[in-house]
């Protein structure tokens, strides 16, 4: 059977299976890990096919998997798997502390599969309208992952999440419709199919394309958390349970970004790169600075990381804006790097929250003495986030600098450097606040987590460092291929 259909069906089935599971935690846990293993292996096998040069497609090109999609699919696979494994641990703690009931845990697990399903759907869709539908579906699927508790804050976050995302995405749908109607009749074949659109983007009306791109920027930008339409993001990431935040910021934002990138590709091939680049530059710079200033004043560790997600979305946008083969390469690489890093970051906040019982970093301190391993993981996450060399994110930032230099746009380099410097300083001061010195507040759980509980985090950390210093050929192949597809001309 076709692998594409498999990867569309299996996660859904898993979700259903989880729904009908008996309420027994050990069983749920083991099944959750097992099923997510299966799903991820499926996704990865699909990706590996693409790496070896295959262009998968099904339903007469209704869904397809190109190298661009493969990158994001692999993210869903790897990050999703590790986070899901961590989720079982996290939920165990939540149960022990009595924050959630077993039933909610079960639903959580089930929904996480549905969520994975919608995300992979959004990645493999070739039909842009259906891609939109899938992305909207990711929102719907993840609402109850976020507001798992029934208290005021989590309800509020869920409310803001769904409302703002739907508004934003409505614009994206308009973009879709416009694009379709602009393309309809002008190009041979179904004007809804991304492949057709990009194949002959040249003979589309440039005015229309520009309008489309702006709508798409607003729409998918809202979902991807580009300022100033990022406003839902910090609340949601801060309120949801750690694994959810990890999934959202690690994978979901990237999927939204993928949507934007697809439009970027179409429009760029239609009207030339200057327009899209300048728009993305503006959006990226705005995002970078707004988020960096917000970062300074954050003392809630999860909010801090949430603003980081925004900042790094800004970095990706900036990379797209700088453009050129290297710039696009950097942007795509950054998607992967940020996905791993942010997953690690949010998972470590799970540990931290368990240790201190609070998310306020001014009430922490001395973590290095309480739980050295967690502190180190937290440190790795921070280092990578602020772009310390040797960690994954630095690579893409370096490449963005390189692209700007080759492009001769030194002003951009300056802006980028300033923003990064602010972020760096803001972050490290918070990090030291939490990690060293004396314990300011009270310590709920004095000691290191069990090693088995830390395994997914360690794996993520290893990934981050590996991507920071080592060159993975297959991954590079994917990136190069997708850059080629984007810059067709």
């Amino acid at each position: 059977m076709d692998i594409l259909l498999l990867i569309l069906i299996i996660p859904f089935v898993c979700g259903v299976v989880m729904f009908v599971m008996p309420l027994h935690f050990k069983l749920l846990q083991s099944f959750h890990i097992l099923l997510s293993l299966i799903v991820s292996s499926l996704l990865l096998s699909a990706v590996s096919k693409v790496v070896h040069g295959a262009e998968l497609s099904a339903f007469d090109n209704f869904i397809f998997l190109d190298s661009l999609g493969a990158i994001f699919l692999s993210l869903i696979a790897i990050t999703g798997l590790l986070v899901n494994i961590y989720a079982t641990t996290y939920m165990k703690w939540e149960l022990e502390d009595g924050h959630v009931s077993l039933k909610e845990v079960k639903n959580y697990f089930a929904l996480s599969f549905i969520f994975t399903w919608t995300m992979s759907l959004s990645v493999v869709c070739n039909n842009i309208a259906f891609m939109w539908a899938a992305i909207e579906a990711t929102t719907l699927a993840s609402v109850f992952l976020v507001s798992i508790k029934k208290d005021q804050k989590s309800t509020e976050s869920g409310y803001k999440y769904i409302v703002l995302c739907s508004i934003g995405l409505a614009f994206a749908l308009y973009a879709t419709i416009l694009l379709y109607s602009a393309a309809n009749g002008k190009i041979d074949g179904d004007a809804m199919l991304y492949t057709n659109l990009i194949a002959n983007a040249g003979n589309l009306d440039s005015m229309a394309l520009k309008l489309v791109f702006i709508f798409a920027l607003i729409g998918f930008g809202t979902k991807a958390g580009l300022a100033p339409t990022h406003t839902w993001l910090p609340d949601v990431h801060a309120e949801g349970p750690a694994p959810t935040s990890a999934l959202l910021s690690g994978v979901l934002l990237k999927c939204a970004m993928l949507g934007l990138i697809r439009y970027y590709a179409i429009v760029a091939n239609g009207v030339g790169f200057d327009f899209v680049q300048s728009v993305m530059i503006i959006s990226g710079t705005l995002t970078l600075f707004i988020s960096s200033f917000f970062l300074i004043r954050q003392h809630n560790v999860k909010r801090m990381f949430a603003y980081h997600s925004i900042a790094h979305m800004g970095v990706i946008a900036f990379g797209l804006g700088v453009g050129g083969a290297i710039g696009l390469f950097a942007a795509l690489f950054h998607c992967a790097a940020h996905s791993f890093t942010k997953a690690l970051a949010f998972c470590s906040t799970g540990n931290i929250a368990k240790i201190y019982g609070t998310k306020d970093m001014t009430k922490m301190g001395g973590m290095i003495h309480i739980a050295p391993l967690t502190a180190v993981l937290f440190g790795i996450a921070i280092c990578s986030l602020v772009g310390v060399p040797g960690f994954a994110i630095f690579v893409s930032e370096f490449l963005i600098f390189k692209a700007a230099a080759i492009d001769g746009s030194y002003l951009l380099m300056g802006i980028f450097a300033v923003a990064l410097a602010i972020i760096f300083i803001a972050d490290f001061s918070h990090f030291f606040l939490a990690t060293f010195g004396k314990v300011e507040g009270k310590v709920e759980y004095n000691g290191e987590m069990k090693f088995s509980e830390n395994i997914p985090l360690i794996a993520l950390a290893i990934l981050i460092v590996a991507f920071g210093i080592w060159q993975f050929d297959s991954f590079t192949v994917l990136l190069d291929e997708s850059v080629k597809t984007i810059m067709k001309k």
Partner: protein
Amino acid sequence: MVFGLRKYKLSIYAYALQTLLLVIVFLLLHFKYGAHELLLWAFTAFLMKVVFVPLFLLKLVNKLSIINEDEPVGGFFISPVIALSFSLAVSMMFYKVFVHFSIFKDALPLFAASFIFMIGIFGFILRNSFLKQILAYCLFENGIHLSLALMAYNSHELVEIGILTDAIFAVVIMSILAKRFYASYDSLDTSKAVNLRG
């Protein structure tokens, strides 16, 4: 009208009415241009939007047993005016563009589409009540739906289905959230929900 009305039930009825209009527009288009997909669309839309959603919302209203809406931004009389004027302006701006690309070249429905859409957006911006915002969501869903029908009727069926399902699920989830919201804030006034800031 959906926007302006103060009583939930009335506005829901108004919504149903409006959607009915939408369906009728579909049918008209169908007869006018012989676009047979629209028949299907009209049918589904009727089922989903004219029957299911209003009933669902009514159920919600009854469950929560609230009649009147909370004070919106700028009072009951100002906000509709603002909304109307702005959305007129914006839709004036847009619909020409739409006309330029649309498949069916008749301006009025297009204008209506973008107008409804804008009203919906402003519903979000100006109304504080959660239920009103749900209705606003349905509104701009309608708007999009209309313009979709006008501009891209001949696309894949799955698209229609997907979008419609999304809309329905969104409404359902929103109303569940609304229930929770009511439980935790014992009102539907979303302007109370400002715990998360900074």
